[in-house]
């Protein structure tokens, strides 16, 4: 009886471990309308034509994307994602627009340059460069002119 109980417990622990293992991996998706090149020597993916990149945090659209990856153990991870032309990034209720964007996985920061704008339900901000710190929920918007620096700090407020 005890042996049977132990066997059932082992199976339960195995299934539970498997569940957590599968959920430990976030999923990123790349869709390309024209072409995609997997360059295993330079460890990159280049997608062109109505590109869509999404992960568990944001969805990005552009005309071209170059994603760099590294190998960690037997897995490969996207580390840097560059987006070119007509960049649109949707992050929760915000929309970032720009000519070029770079996302770095290590610090979870998106930097947009060019004709940048930030749209949210309550405001529209425009500038030359946007640095979106996703982990710290911080947005820094710079104008093209160094003399007129603008910084916007958005705090989490569930009531507003």
């Amino acid at each position: 009886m005890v042996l049977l109980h132990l066997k059932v417990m082992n199976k339960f622990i195995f299934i539970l471990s498997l569940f957590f293992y599968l959920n430990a991996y976030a999923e990123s998706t790349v869709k390309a309308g024209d072409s995609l090149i997997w360059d295993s020597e330079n460890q990159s993916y280049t997608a062109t034509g109505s590109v869509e990149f999404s992960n568990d945090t944001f969805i990005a659209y552009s005309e071209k994307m170059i994603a760099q990856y590294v190998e960690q153990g037997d897995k490969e991870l996207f580390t840097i994602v560059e987006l070119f032309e007509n960049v649109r990034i949707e992050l929760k209720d915000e929309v970032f627009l720009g000519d070029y964007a770079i996302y770095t996985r290590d610090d979870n920061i998106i930097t947009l340059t060019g004709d940048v704008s930030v749209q949210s339900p309550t405001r529209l901000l425009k500038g030359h460069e946007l640095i979106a710190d996703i982990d710290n929920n911080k947005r820094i918007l710079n104008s093209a002119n160094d003399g007129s620096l603008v910084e916007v700090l958005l705090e989490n407020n569930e009531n507003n």
Partner: protein
Amino acid sequence: MSKFLKENIFNFLIFLLLSLQAFMYYYDNKPSSKVYSQKSMSVENFSSIVLSKSGLTKIGSDKLNKIDEDQFFLQGKSYLENKEYKIYGEDISINLIEEISHSKKSVQVINSMGTLEAHGFKNIDSEGKIYFDGIVTFKSHE
């Protein structure tokens, strides 16, 4: 002179026709300098291993058509598997010398990062690049 021609005109024409026929016969039977060594061969439910830059690659298909010593056509459902990728598709052409494989049919590629689906591919193994044309979807499991 005119009398001579009138008497021998038929002999001359017959000689001319015979010469023309001999000429045609000679060139019609002249052996070609080109050597054709095309041996077509096909095998069903085929699988084998080839050595390329990516290492040992296992290939297989419903039917293998050997075009020549260096070119194969994997007809029907086919695959290429090695330590870097697994390519599952249809009607894949392989050139062993140029280390190129390609197909214009739907293909699924599985690598250590995720799964990619496209409508055709061109794998240049010597460059370590795989080109996918048309609408491509790649899902990674990070």
